[in-house]
């Protein structure tokens, strides 16, 4: 693959979408930390925002999509989505337009972050292109709405294979398919069938399956049951937020969207309008997403150094943002990480 030809020191260009709400603040933290760590990356910024949506025009201009495709790597802050009305989610549009079919969301208890729960160490692999997110809805007659969930064999097998490959490459031992095939017999049934079929090709990885409500209960009481989880779109969204809650909140969990040709790091959390513009956000989630991106780019050493600096600051507990019970501003916390590098 052409990407492997470049070496660790060549300067590379990565697309940066600061996003809405707290997006610009946490993106700034990422830029500062990566620069301080001497990561050979320069940024090309794209001001995608709900504010820049022009009615009647493409939600995301095609030249912007082309640029991200050309660069192959990107990182984005959260984009705001209107509720119940208005334009389609920009986060979603971006994932679909770029063919980012698998969403990787590791969720691990961080040393030093107190939780009430047993230690969690799971990687959530979420199908990212279809399911409930296809956006096919209509009003059949007044007062009756239908919403389509679409599951295809192609997408299900693709994400299942991705999960098993991920498990193998990352020395994980078990993949659990999460589903609701007891009710959604055909749709989740097919997803489950695909997972079973792909599982047979990976005898070295244990395969299990679990109903979504069992998984959500057990993640709280016996998380050691789970290792890598593979889920349909909405289920993945819900379970990853649940898992984030178990390890200390949305401010801490990373996420990477993977496609055939494009990789896009983004935090799991939203725009957090309540704290936007106040320098109060926790940039850890986006920083750890950037770490995942660096790993994907083959910049292991840089990734390790940055991750280590983040974990050190969190473990020492002197400088923490408010969501973690601290008093530090986003910028102060960022500075603390930089001084650990």
């Amino acid at each position: 693959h052409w990407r492997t030809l470049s070496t660790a020191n060549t300067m590379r260009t990565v697309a940066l979408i600061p996003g809405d709400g707290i997006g610009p603040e946490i993106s700034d933290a990422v830029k500062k930390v990566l620069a301080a760590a001497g990561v050979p990356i320069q940024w090309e910024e794209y001001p995608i925002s709900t504010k820049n949506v022009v009615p009647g025009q493409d939600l995301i201009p095609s030249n912007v999509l082309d640029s991200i495709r050309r660069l192959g790597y990107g990182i984005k802050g959260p984009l705001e989505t209107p509720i119940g009305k208005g334009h389609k989610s920009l986060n979603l549009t971006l994932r679909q337009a770029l063919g980012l079919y698998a969403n990787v969301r590791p969720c691990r208890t961080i040393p030093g972050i107190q939780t009430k729960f047993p230690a969690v160490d799971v990687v959530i692999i979420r199908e990212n292109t279809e399911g409930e997110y296809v956006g096919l809805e209509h009003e059949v007659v007044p007062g009756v709405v239908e919403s389509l969930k679409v599951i295809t064999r192609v997408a299900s097998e693709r994400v299942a294979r991705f999960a098993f490959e991920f498990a193998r490459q990352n020395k994980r031992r078990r993949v659990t398919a999460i589903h609701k095939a007891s009710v959604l017999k055909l749709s989740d049934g097919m997803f489950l069938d695909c997972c079973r079929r792909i599982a047979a090709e990976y005898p070295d990885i244990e395969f299990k399956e679990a109903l979504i409500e069992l998984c959500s209960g057990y993640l709280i009481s016996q998380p050691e049951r789970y290792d890598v989880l593979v889920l349909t779109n909405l289920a993945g969204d819900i379970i990853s937020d649940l898992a984030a809650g178990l390890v200390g909140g949305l401010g801490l969990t990373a996420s990477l969207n993977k496609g055939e040709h494009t990789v896009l790091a983004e935090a799991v959390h939203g725009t957090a309008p309540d704290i936007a513009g106040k320098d109060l956000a926790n940039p850890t989630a986006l920083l750890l997403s950037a770490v995942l991106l660096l790993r994907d780019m083959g910049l292991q050493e840089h990734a390790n150094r940055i991750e280590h600096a983040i974990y050190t600051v969190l473990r020492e507990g002197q400088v923490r943002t408010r969501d973690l019970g601290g008093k530090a501003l986003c910028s102060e916390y960022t500075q603390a990480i930089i001084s650990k590098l």
Partner: protein
Amino acid sequence: VYPAATAVGDTKLITMLPGEGIGPECMEALVAVFEAAHVPVEFETYHIPEPEKGLPASVIDAVNRNRLVMKGPFHTPYGFKGTSINILLRRGFDLFANVVHVFPMPGVKAKYDDIDIVLVRENTEGEYSGLEHSAVDGVVESLKIVTEEHSLRIAEYAFRYAMRNNRKKVTCVHKANILKSADGLFLECARHVASKYPFIEFESMIVDATCMRMVSNPEQFDVVLLPNLYGNIVGSVATSLGGGTGLFPGANIGPSGAMFEQGVRHAGKGISGRGIANPTATILAGVMMLRYLKMFDFADFIQDAVMSVYQETDIRTPDMGGKATTKQFTAAVIEKMDAIMEELS
């Protein structure tokens, strides 16, 4: 079908469907407790040996006659193409509201001490419509149906429940940022009903954020209004936080009848037949039924006994970290009832 009025003093007839897995064991415990308390109800028990063939006519007749069901879980195998007994009962008898109460169980070490959440879940439509088809080979569509009528009805139920039980807030859970029309309609109906209850606080919350907030700060929730599938997931989160699935009861309420069962329905296949299932949720579901029947004294009596087993003894079934069998736990409840009676006399 309009059931004949039951004269005061008559024994109330209840249809009992023990179900599969741990159902029969838990139901046995319930019957033992009710008998020991001399509750004036009588159970008509129906076993459904072939649940994949649907509801037998005799069961449909019995439910129509009694309009009250105590039910155990029915396991739905994934390959099974028909409709599960659980859904047939809920939809067939229009039991539109699923109510699960998660409360602090004294003596149980829960993740949080002051969880007190009532989940009101739409029980008849949404993702459970059963409308799925394969468009072409390898492409499946599944329909989620949301109707204004049913969304208004469940929202109305949630607010009335809140009002009658002195609750302060209703949180409507949705994913209307993505399912703009379907969940959008559900949310809009909830808002409309909320405007008629200005003395009850109303808020809306996205389902993934709800799970996240529930595990980190469950005290903020009071009455939670949910579409069908989210109710299933969030219900499991809430009961797990409260100390375990085996503890909390649930009711399915319709315009002309009700069905009671463990709050989060699990067949518990892994432990069934070993006599170690936790009957607490089932016994408390019986208590909910007694309240529904306005037999408040019996309800309080049994509930007090169950609570004091948890508060005053360390008799626990294995799911709660103990070694007691279902029968030993049940005997402990009955012993507490005897003690309470003795104190009274």
